[in-house]
């Protein structure tokens, strides 16, 4: 488990970026411990707020010198919409860094980074880390519409190998991010693919990576109630190194996983062979 801190961060900046808002927070003691894939859990409203559950956001950027972290807020949930009412100077109850970061093999790595919507926020610091280690990256950034893409310019600043897909064709290739995936993996000679976005996308990326013989890591985005591992809202069925399938917590064992460990087709169910399923009435 990461060793997070809980503090009253100060909101420094809340800026619209396409369909999203970038939130910059002053959070002393946090940034230096953030690794790509870590997330932050924010309380919504003050001590009397009627919205009790924490909202989890991938940490987009962490700047130890400025003592800041930045997050990307998608206002599709009422808690996130409430956060957008905050103004610079307001305190935000923040717990970070949380979760398990993206695993990175030692030595230079050629990796393809695949994002759905604002899932890209988690991938830019990862790309910088891979490049700093002597490796190289390519990107596929996909979204339903052009407005829901995030960070195409940031990707292009890192590498010429950037593909953009939109489902409505309003930008780049018309289709899903997985459409050019197999070809892109071959084109850059990827040894690994890292993805972040909706579950369906991550499942498809993992399937294609497996078919192509490339390792696939992903950061899941799933609803959490606490973000720290106690509420057990965010569990997914996953195969352990011992071959036994268990529910694992996206907030502690994840959000970054080896995609081949997740039992994507069993999400939302308790498979009969899952550890502890017998006690729930599954037959042995």
């Amino acid at each position, binding site marked *: 488990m990461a060793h997070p801190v809980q503090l009253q961060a100060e909101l420094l900046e809340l800026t619209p970026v396409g369909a999203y808002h970038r939130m910059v927070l002053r959070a002393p003691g946090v940034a230096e411990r953030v690794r790509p894939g870590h997330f932050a859990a924010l309380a919504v409203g003050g001590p009397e707020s009627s919205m*009790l559950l924490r909202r989890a956001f991938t940490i987009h950027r962490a700047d130890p010198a400025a003592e800041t972290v930045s997050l990307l807020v998608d206002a599709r949930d009422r808690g996130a919409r409430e956060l957008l009412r905050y103004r610079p100077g307001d305190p935000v109850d923040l717990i970070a860094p949380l979760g398990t970061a993206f695993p990175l093999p030692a030595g230079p790595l050629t990796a393809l980074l695949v994002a759905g919507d604002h899932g890209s926020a988690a991938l830019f610091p990862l790309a910088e880390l891979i490049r700093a280690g002597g490796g190289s990256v390519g990107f596929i950034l996909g979204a339903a519409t052009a407005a829901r893409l995030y960070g195409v310019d940031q990707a292009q600043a890192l590498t010429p190998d950037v593909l953009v897909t939109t489902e409505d064709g309003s930008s780049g290739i018309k289709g899903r991010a997985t459409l050019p995936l197999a070809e892109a993996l071959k084109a850059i000679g990827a040894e690994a693919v890292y993805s972040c976005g909706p579950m369906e996308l991550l499942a498809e990326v993992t399937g294609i990576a497996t078919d192509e013989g490339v390792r696939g890591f992903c950061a899941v985005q799933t609803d959490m109630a606490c973000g720290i591992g106690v509420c*057990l809202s965010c569990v997914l069925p996953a195969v352990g190194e011992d071959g036994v399938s268990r*529910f694992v917590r996206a907030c502690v064992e994840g959000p970054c996983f080896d995609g081949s460990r997740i039992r994507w087709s069993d999400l939302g169910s308790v498979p009969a062979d899952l550890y502890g399923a017998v006690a729930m009435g599954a037959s042995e």
Partner: protein
Amino acid sequence: MDGTPEPAPDLTAPDPAAVDLTAVDLTAPFGGGTLPNPVSTASGCAGYGREIARFQPLAELGSITTRTIMPHPRAGQPTPRTAETPSGMLNAVGLPGVGVEHFVEHELPWLAERGARVLVSVAGERVEEFAEIARLLVGRPGVVGIEANLACPNHDNRGLAFGGNPATSYDVIAAVRETADPRIPVYAKLTPDVTSVTEIAAACVKAGADGLSMINTLLGMAVDTSTMRPALAGESGGLSGPAIRPVAVRCVYQVHAAMRSGAVPQVPIMGMGGIRSGLDALEFVLAGASGVAVGTAVFNDPSAPLRVLAELRAALAERGFSRFADAVGHAHRPS
């Protein structure tokens, strides 16, 4: 609990700077003995302690109540398991857990090493399973009490909760009391989803309960208007959080009143249900609780248990109480 204490001074506008916070003796009645202070965690809201230990030293809490321990490892319910509701949440998590064997070998020693006083929540699908877990906890370091989770479905009665009627509540508590370490108290955790919580409380105390934990969640449900299906995979779930606090305070007040009148033998009550601040905790204490447990608030603020303790101490001092125990049931004093 022990008669009417001296009336506290009327402090309508207490001045926090003027009170000596260190002067409050927080020793709290617990079973037939005491704990250093009244604050615990509510079962299922603090795991086995490891996660919240990152936010406060567990030994500083009066006790820590574990996730419910059952005989075998349990996966729990499918997702979605929780849904936010106004000032509360619904959960249908399904009592997932590691099983008693793993708990006593790995989780309990970890807690004991940290000086935590552990109130172990136990359950089974049959009366004998409750009793067997209580037996396996005999002599284990760190255990200060057992809390029988009567909301568990009864395998032998169509899956209805044991706590739904006096007879099955009695059976569970009597069986647990018989096998549990005689030196440690057995608490009965009561569900509010009954016609008369006092009647169930009386049955539990008659069966040998040394204390009552009140209350468990209320059964509730939400429908997701986007998917147009139940918000939880389990369809209905337990409602918790500040939304249920008035129900919980009412239950504690009623049962404490029944104890004062002699209708129910006197045992300490651990109050819980929507406690988020020291004043919330004080409400329960004044209503008759000798202990308080912080539950859903932990999801919002993992350091809530220790914060609630500090705020409760201040609230008692501001009201002129030098002993926590004097505030217990103070709302029942003659006007």
